[in-house]
């Protein structure tokens, strides 16, 4: 698990499985645009670009309107197609642009770096408009169409990557593609001739491809032939829906007048070809520009295109066609779902239950309403969108917002959620433990946050950045007690420098010095008998004596450092320093001491029922119950403080038998305590001590020590290793 910044993930969940096959015909689109002399003809759609304002109109002869050539119309509409495509699918829906006159000119390649409208525009500028004086006999769209088929056989980066990845099932990588031919055909017979020629070329090229590694045979080709003719003329070519020419080739013919009809046609085609749908955002408030209307605002509409899955809910529920907001525009060819703008409340950082996020592209990208909306979103604002309903409460179904310079239409769940009313985590296991090191783990998460690493940067270890992040997590969690009462060292400011350094992969000499200083400082503290933040809760007394406290602390510190000692010599030096400096040699001294105390204790129990011995025998009884008693001990803690986090110094788990709180020897004791202590003290003598307990440190004994030897690493704290 790794920790990115929450800001980066403002929505709760995403489900954007694209239904389109990875290698459907949409993976490769070849534009073949006619560059023959007749394309230089005027479209006869005139544009008045000299719009004179009234105040300046007198005495000025306005410029004659300009008109676009068929070529200009074809190019700008194809660019618009590409713009929308690249906005919605920035990757791996590829375009290869070819123009055809007396020969073919391939303007870009399938490579990802060649996929942008800027690249294409630059190449188109180099081609320039068709030369009307060129010999029409030498010119043909066929050159381009043949080149298009050849190009479809060329393998793309994605096809190559997937074939490599799939190894022996590489044949699952299909090769399909679409040819969009923008031309001025002579007749239906001419169109048939073009189709036949493509069919033949596919068969020829497929033979060639069979013997090549860098070529792939075409499995399916979709020809979309758009016949463009000037306004005011009759078409010589008839429309024809998609039909199968052969199992390899389908063909459809669209006969369209140049100008806005062509633009509309290509807009519809890009939606069909790439599973797009349209949403119109209505009621967008915008300041009016004209001076006479200063400070007033009017409402505008903006149309956006996006993957049609963003409308899934409407499609499926059958509401789509009947929705109040659905409108059919222009010549009845286009459908859009209307959603109403909801002015965002300021400072609301709500998380919405989001079921999908889809990239958008405005239909009319540089109109003022569109650019106002997109700039608003790019500046970090979000807009909720409401379904217009004739009656009933308002339903927010979508949200627009941007991430990293890209705008997404988010689908919000407007129905009941199956995740409603989840149980509280406190009802689950571990939910009633109240002294988790929440703040420390927060700090741990912040230290383990992630950041993007450039793909070009190479690490000497050969590991990917995410692997290195996981390795860091592993190092940082080798010894990480989860609750405050399980640890002493992580409650001590004095240990911080060492604890921060020891988890590093490598240490410098300076780091070792800092660690050693930390150890010396602890030695100093012990010499001065400074108090340690050791919990007394659950110990039925004031907690362990000062020297015992230090023994606990040193043991824990040693445990921490041991888990890293194997990493480098410098890590080992830190461990050596601790072993050399710590107050007492751990285990032996410990056992001796326990033996001595036990005698002492039994002695006293016989003599009197003093509080001190009560404590001792209670501890004994606890030991006799076996491993399970830990839970009982914890339940005591919880009784003490059911909900609030434990204060730092409450330490139920670290209590041990060596408690000798002198003050309490004089205190009164309940009859029940006296009785149960006596019973348990007697019982404890009736059986042989477990090996583990007899050789335990701090009433803890590390289980599965042999595993530790095998793994060469101690991942658990003493006593915690039981689970």
């Amino acid at each position, binding site marked *: 698990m790794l920790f990115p910044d*929450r800001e980066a993930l403002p929505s709760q969940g995403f489900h954007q499985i694209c239904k389109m096959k990875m290698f459907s015909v949409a993976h490769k689109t070849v534009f073949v645009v006619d560059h023959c002399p007749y394309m230089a003809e005027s479209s006869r759609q005139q544009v008045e670009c000299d719009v004179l304002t009234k105040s300046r109109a007198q005495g000025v002869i306005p410029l004659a309107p300009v008109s676009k050539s068929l070529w200009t119309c074809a190019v700008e509409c194809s660019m618009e197609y590409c713009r929308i495509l690249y906005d919605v699918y920035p990757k791996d829906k590829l375009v290869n642009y070819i123009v055809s006159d007396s020969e073919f000119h391939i303007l870009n390649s399938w490579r990802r770096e060649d996929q942008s409208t800027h690249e294409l525009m630059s190449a188109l500028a180099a081609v320039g408009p068709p030369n009307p004086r060129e010999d029409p006999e030498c010119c043909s769209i066929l050159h381009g169409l043949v080149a298009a088929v050849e190009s479809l056989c060329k393998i793309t980066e994605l096809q190559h990557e997937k074939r490599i990845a799939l190894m022996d099932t590489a044949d699952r990588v299909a090769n399909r593609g679409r040819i969009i031919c923008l031309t001025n055909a002579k007749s239906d017979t001419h169109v048939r001739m073009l189709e036949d020629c493509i069919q033949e070329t596919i068969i020829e090229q497929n033979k060639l491809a069979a013997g090549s590694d860098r070529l792939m045979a075409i499995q399916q080709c979709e020809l979309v032939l758009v016949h463009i003719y000037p306004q005011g003329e009759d078409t010589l070519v008839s429309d024809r829906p998609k039909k199968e020419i052969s199992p390899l080739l389908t063909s459809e013919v669209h006969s369209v007048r140049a100008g806005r009809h062509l633009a509309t046609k290509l807009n519809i085609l890009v939606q069909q070809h790439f599973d797009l749908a349209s949403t119109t955002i209505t009621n967008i408030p915008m300041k009016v520009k004209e001076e006479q209307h200063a400070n007033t605002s009017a409402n505008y509409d903006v149309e956006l295109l996006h993957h049609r899955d963003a409308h899934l809910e409407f499609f499926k529920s059958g509401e789509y066609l009947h929705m109040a907001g659905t409108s059919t525009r222009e010549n009845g060819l286009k459908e859009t779902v209307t959603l109403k703008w909801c002015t965002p409340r300021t400072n609301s950082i709500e998380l919405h239950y989001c079921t999908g996020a889809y990239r958008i592209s405005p239909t009319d990208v*540089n109109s003022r309403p569109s650019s106002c909306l997109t700039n608003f979103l790019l500046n970090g604002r979000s807009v909720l969108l409401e379904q217009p309903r004739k009656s009933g409460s308002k339903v927010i179904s979508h949200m627009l917002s941007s991430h990293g310079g890209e705008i997404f239409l988010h689908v919000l769940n407007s129905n009941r959620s199956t995740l409603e009313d*989840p149980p509280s985590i406190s009802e689950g296991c571990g939910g009633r433990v109240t002294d988790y090191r929440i703040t420390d783990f927060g700090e741990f998460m912040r230290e383990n946050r992630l950041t993007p690493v450039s793909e070009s940067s190479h690490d000497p270890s050969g590991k990917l950045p995410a692997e290195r992040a996981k390795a860091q997590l592993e190092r940082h969690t080798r010894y990480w007690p989860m609750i405050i009462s399980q640890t002493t060292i992580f409650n001590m400011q004095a240990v911080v420098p060492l604890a921060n350094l020891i988890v590093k992969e490598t240490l410098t000499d300076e780091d070792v010095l800092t660690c050693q200083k930390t150890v010396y400082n602890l030695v100093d503290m012990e010499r001065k008998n400074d108090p340690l933040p050791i919990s007394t809760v659950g110990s039925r007394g004031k907690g362990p004596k000062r020297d015992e406290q230090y023994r606990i602390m040193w043991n824990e510190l040693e445990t921490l450092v041991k888990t890293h000692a194997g990493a480098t010599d410098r890590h080992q030096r830190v461990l050596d320093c601790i072993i050399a400096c710590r107050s007492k040699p751990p285990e032996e001294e410990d056992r001796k001491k326990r033996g001595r105390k036990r005698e002492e204790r039994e002695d006293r129990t016989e003599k009197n029922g003093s509080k001190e011995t009560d404590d001792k025998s209670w501890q004994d009884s606890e030991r006799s119950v076996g491993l399970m008693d830990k839970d009982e001990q914890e339940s005591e803690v919880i009784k003490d403080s059911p909900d609030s986090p434990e204060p730092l110094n409450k330490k139920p788990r670290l209590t041990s038998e060596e408690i000798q709180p002198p003050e309490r020897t004089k205190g009164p004791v309940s009859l029940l305590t006296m009785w149960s202590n006596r019973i348990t003290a007697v019982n404890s003598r009736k059986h042989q001590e477990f090996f583990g307990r007899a050789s335990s440190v701090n009433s803890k004994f590390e289980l599965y020590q042999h595993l530790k030897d095998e793994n060469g690493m101690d991942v658990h704290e003493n006593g915690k290793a039981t689970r």
Partner: protein
Amino acid sequence: MPTVVLMDVSLSMTRPVSLDGIEEFQRKNLAVHGLNMLFEHMASNYRLEFTSLMAFSSLWELLVPFTRDYNALQEALSNLEDYDKTCVEAALNGVSNVVQQEWGSACPCQVVLVTDGSLGIGKGSLRHSLQTLKQRGDDKKFPLPFPFPTKLFIMCIANAEELQMTDAMDNLEELLCLSGGDGQIFTMEGPLCMKSVQTMFGKLIDLVYSPFHAVLHCGNLSSDVQVFPRPEPVVMDEEVEPMPRTVNVDEVGTGTTDELEEEPSASQMAGKSPNFCVLLHGSLKVEGMVALVQLGPEWYGMLYSQADSKKKSNLMMSLFDPGPEPLPWLGKISHLGPISEAADNPYGEDDSKSPFPVQPQVKRSYAQNVTVWIKASGLQTDVQKILRNARKLPDKTQTFYKELNRLRKAALAFGFWELLKGVADLLERECTMLPDSAHPDAAFQLSHAAQQLKLASTGDSQYAAFDHNIVPMHTDFSS
């Protein structure tokens, strides 16, 4: 994933099944027994599932709306009455309505149809429905497939031999096929008795309602978790990767639907020992952070604290679509590295900045001031912008040339040389109309710009290069 239990309460369900004359049950009793077993199992192991109970004969009735109250469901089972004949189509229409009203059409749903396999006679029978499938208008379409993703489980209180004697089995198989094929038909094995009905429902429970256990690891810290709803396998691309991806239980966390909820499993760990999930949840909540979780090779999700109300919050897991780059603004997940390797903390020493979102290499069209002249207004606006700035020369020299070059580039790309000439003419006209008070530089810049546009409109490669920009004429009026 919510469950609809659709219980056949037609008269045929009251047919007795006799076992050596010892005890006599109706098929209905067996069905109720099986369902009780299912509900009991869910109450203890799958209690977050929403389940509703519908009964049907020739009509249908919603007995218990979607609930997690399994007592209510069992209570309703014990009060079932007997009605007339079986009409599956009407009942399925009912299911479709009930589910869509509650969950919409995107939420996947499980339908458990409990029937004796006698599927009605004449009009309204399943046989009739299936025979007339193709003769229907849009208003009387067969309810399958449902608009929502469906898993259909048909529990037959009958054995397979009995169903195969008639066309009942064929019809049920066709029904399953119509619903999309996801699901199964269960029949009873051996004699119809309590034991065999238990076996049958046991199989359903194992297949569909077994709790999903996984282990959540964070370095050496870990916790056993149960994930609800159960993550389902995902097919990413039927062609390139036809095998569905499933969550690798050993690897890390879990799941496939949109959002999953994790509960630390109560079975594995003692009640009050500290649990990593609780620690993680607490810290995520306090810090307002999310944790990235890996579910398998190139499959990721995120963990965060989800609060339903102020009091209750839990650890939630949302799954991303499988793939190396599920959220474009994070970049490739494999290329997220520890901040300790960065020279400077990318979050800033005081958490004032963030390395996210990762910006795409190429800006989207709406972020880069593209030129589109599809509509006349687009072209007019661009020309007017140039003229407006032309009238404010030399103050607006920079903006004037910026807009001029933008128009020039687009006109060259579109092969729209006529426009270049037209704008050159306009600039020359502006030049002649300059007021006497105009700065002398204005005239120089206008005629310079006009001349450059005219040169570009010849297509001469020296002047018509796309990447070439017209630069302001160097003038010096200071002396």
